[in-house]
């Protein structure tokens, strides 16, 4: 998932703060009828339980955002918030359950009538659809619509930008180009997916992958009715299979969802569909949005990226205000990675020297202090099974260990330190600050770091190209990563599996290619038992940590406001965000 962090350009927007009305406004929340209960829910109340449980229907949910949606087309969206938002209008075979905390990571049958039948070799998944499911226009959702939806993603020249995992799993060398150029009369030429009848869909994989169900929970596996597909323009008004449908969609301005009468609540395993209307308003003015949030005239920051600094300062200094915020992990780890292809980092002692010399508290402060993330010891975020508080380099202590760092330098043969370059995205102020903080800390052990800010949007070809990393001497690289699906391989595989190293758009910056690690991933893929897989991910995570390639800065958090009038507020670990679909408004307005 992409977490759309403040761009440099939006830095200003993310700043100017609150009007005087904001102060008075916080009281109005408690005066609202039915909102009294919620007004004192407390800090982090929604992190692991439901705040204001209620079944009260009606009213308008007012979501606000400073970052526009990347695409409403389920096949093309990559923002976490859109994936979360899609639950209003898109159903998939499987979906993340509507539960707080770790329970939200469970997949439940949504369009599917039950969990899939998986063949003994783990390669064939057979789903039966629930009967009577309908699109917003009243036509029945068939297995062919799901297949067609998946096929669209193969047409990357039209349906670009979204996750392509299904393509990787299902292409299997047939080089399918998508339905638009499909010679099959029904445009259903993808051979690895079969639809023997309208309620059955069979996926045949080339090799077992226990994560495959997660791929089917993504928008890229959502049903799209072929006769209503508008190709590149589908994002203008996607066809709903969920409880709401689009009344209007104006990019850059806002979106409005109204009830989809063809959605059958009885068929839905978790969606509450409480408000009558869901509005998403796009603004460029973070200042204004935060003012509205604190005044409780807006319900929630749709982007869930946290209050701007000015509002944050205000909230943190006022316990009453703070009680209306949550500061959950969002599934991201911010880290500095060391590239062993760049001397002297081929020597693990030099890498360890950096780990010991790093002032993690300063790094945390550079990212915005403890509300912006917790110090973290390894590379598997807390919301993923298999994660633990493993911390071999005692990074969570928050203090550099200069003695040990110097020892390691000696062991590395560089007792007088060395020079290296840290690559950082120039458009990410927090990352730049992190780089500068690390630069300062490493000075203490005579490691002389040059901060190189590259054009952040080009990371795929700058730090994502191993050749470029080597030629530019990027010994240190500041980055962040969040999983596209919440499993150990979803998070770690692109980062540490040697077979994922590519010449461009690489994410395994350390170019770790350890057969043992790669093998563990394969084992986990074959394991249908999540607990067993989690055990393997733990091993991988520990081995990576021991290898001293990664300096985790923080496990990311975001301090978000919740309007006290909202009901059923909880954080879903699947998105690291408030589960939008569950929300209702207590005052019915």
């Amino acid at each position, binding site marked *: 998932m992409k977490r759309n962090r403040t761009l440099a350009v939006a830095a200003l927007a993310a700043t100017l703060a609150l009007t005087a009305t904001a102060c008075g406004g916080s009281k109005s929340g408690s005066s609202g009828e039915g909102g009294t209960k919620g007004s004192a829910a407390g800090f982090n109340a929604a992190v692991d339980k439901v705040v204001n449980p209620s079944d009260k229907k009606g009213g308008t949910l007012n979501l606000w955002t400073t970052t526009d949606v990347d695409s409403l087309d389920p096949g093309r969206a990559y923002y976490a918030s859109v994936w979360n938002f899609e639950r209003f209008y898109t159903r998939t075979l499987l979906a993340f359950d509507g539960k707080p905390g770790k329970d939200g990571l469970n997949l439940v049958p949504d369009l599917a009538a039950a969990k899939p039948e998986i063949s003994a070799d783990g390669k064939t998944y057979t789903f039966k659809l629930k009967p009577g499911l309908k699109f917003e226009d009243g036509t029945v959702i068939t297995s062919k619509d799901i297949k067609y939806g998946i096929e669209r993603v193969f047409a990357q020249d039209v349906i670009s930008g979204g996750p392509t995992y299904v393509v990787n799993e299902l292409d299997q060398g047939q080089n399918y180009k998508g339905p638009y150029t499909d010679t099959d009369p029904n445009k259903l030429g993808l051979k690895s997916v079969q639809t023997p009848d309208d309620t059955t869909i069979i996926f045949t994989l080339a090799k077992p992958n226990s994560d495959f169900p997660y791929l089917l929970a993504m928008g890229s596996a959502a049903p799209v009715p072929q006769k209503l597909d508008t190709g590149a323009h589908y994002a203008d008004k996607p066809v709903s299979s969920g409880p709401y449908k689009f009344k209007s969609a104006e990019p850059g301005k806002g979106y409005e969802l109204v009830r989809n009468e063809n959605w059958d609540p009885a068929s839905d395993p978790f969606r509450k569909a409480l408000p009558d209307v869901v509005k998403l308003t796009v603004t460029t003015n973070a200042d204004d949005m935060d003012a509205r949030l604190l005044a409780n005239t807006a319900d929630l920051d749709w982007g869930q990226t946290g209050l701007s600094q000015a509002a944050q300062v205000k909230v943190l200094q006022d316990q009453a205000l703070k009680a209306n915020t949550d500061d959950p992990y969002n599934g991201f780890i911010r880290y500095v990675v060391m590239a062993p292809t760049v001397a002297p980092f081929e020597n693990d002692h030099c890498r360890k020297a950096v780990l010991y010399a790093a002032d993690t508290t300063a790094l945390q402060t550079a990212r915005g202090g403890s509300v912006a993330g917790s110090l973290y010891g390894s590379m598997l975020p807390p919301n993923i099974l298999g994660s633990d508080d493993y911390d071999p380099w005692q990074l969570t202590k928050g203090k550099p260990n200069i003695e040990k760092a110097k020892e390691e330098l000696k062991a590395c043969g560089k007792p007088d330190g060395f020079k290296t370059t840290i690559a950082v995205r120039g458009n990410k102020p927090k990352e730049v600050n992190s780089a500068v903080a690390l630069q300062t800390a490493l000075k203490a052990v005579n490691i002389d770091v040059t901060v190189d800010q590259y054009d952040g949007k080009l990371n*795929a070809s700058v730090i994502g190209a191993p050749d470029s990393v080597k030629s530019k001497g990027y010994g240190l690289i500041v980055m962040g990563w969040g999983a596209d699906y919440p499993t150990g391989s979803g998070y770690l595989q692109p980062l540490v599996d040697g077979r994922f190293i590519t010449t461009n758009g690489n994410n395994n910056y350390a170019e770790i290619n350890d057969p043992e690690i790669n093998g563990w991933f394969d084992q986990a893929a074959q394991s249908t038992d999540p607990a067993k897989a989690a055990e393997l991910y733990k091993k991988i995570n520990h081995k990576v940590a021991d290898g001293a390639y990664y300096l985790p800065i923080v496990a990311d958090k975001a301090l978000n406001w919740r309007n006290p009038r909202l009901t059923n507020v909880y954080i879903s670990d699947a998105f690291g965000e408030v589960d939008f679909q569950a929300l209702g408004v207590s005052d019915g307005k």
Partner: protein
Amino acid sequence: MLVYLFRRLINVVLMLLVVAAVTFGIFFMVPKLTGTDPALLYVGKIADHAAVEGIRHKMGLDKSIVEQFWLFLKGVFVGRDFNAGVDVTHCYAPCLGYSFKTEQEVFPLLLSRVGVDISLAVGASVLWLLLGTATGIVSALRRGTALDRISMTVALAGVSLPMYFTGLVALAVFVHQLGWFPNTYTEFADDPVSWFQGLVLPWITLAFLFAATYARLSRATLLDVLGEDYIRTARAKGLKEPVVIGKHAMRSTLTPILTVFGMDLGGLLGGAVLTEKTFNLRGLGYEAVQSISSSDLPVIMGVTMFAAFFIIMASLVVDLLYAVVDPKVKLA
């Protein structure tokens, strides 16, 4: 006159072509120089070669620069077709293509943005023109008095202050401390009152900067004009002082200000990056900065063309007006 107008319009088109070609060239070359591929920006998180190729094809980046530019020009003059997968979409002239990022048609997108800049420019320009020239004229006529000194000190301060700093201070004081104005922009069509309230501070901030410039300019111009022989002649004829100043001196003073005003207005209409940024307005300037930061070539081209169009048209209008105001100028 018509011949002149025709020639000038051809000239406008040629200038726009040159601006377009240079812009296109630069932004086409930049990825080559930096060794990066804009297509990589628009694939999903984990890029795969086929996907990148598909996107390159969709964006037309697999064609040669000449072909791409030709298609761009074709779009502007006669419109062009885009493959939307299931069918082909026709983008009618003047077609500036589709945004790489949002896949919205660029021309209507920018048209919807320009309203902000028009609102901003029109309100601010009326303010600064009145305020600036009036101050300058009074200062010149009361040369050396305390009023003159104070006005000119303020004006000098005005041209020496970065407008975003003034804007931030204004925001801090009038929005956050006093709460006199909202901190949002509302479209005129939605609510004229909110529209007005939301623009008061940007107008004043922008007008302060320009008014300072205009006060200095009009004062200096009027002082020069007052030293002209024909002003002495007017006095020698026994004309009353108000006639000498109000008629003879004013006409010569305001004429050059007209030029500057036209160009400034044209410049602002094409996007006021700093004002938009400071006051969170979403106009052409915002769109420009966004498009640059996301290598969104069609939008970059579009914004540049819009801005250049306004500037070039402003100079044309100024020239035409000049022919009306200044009998020495002949349109031929």
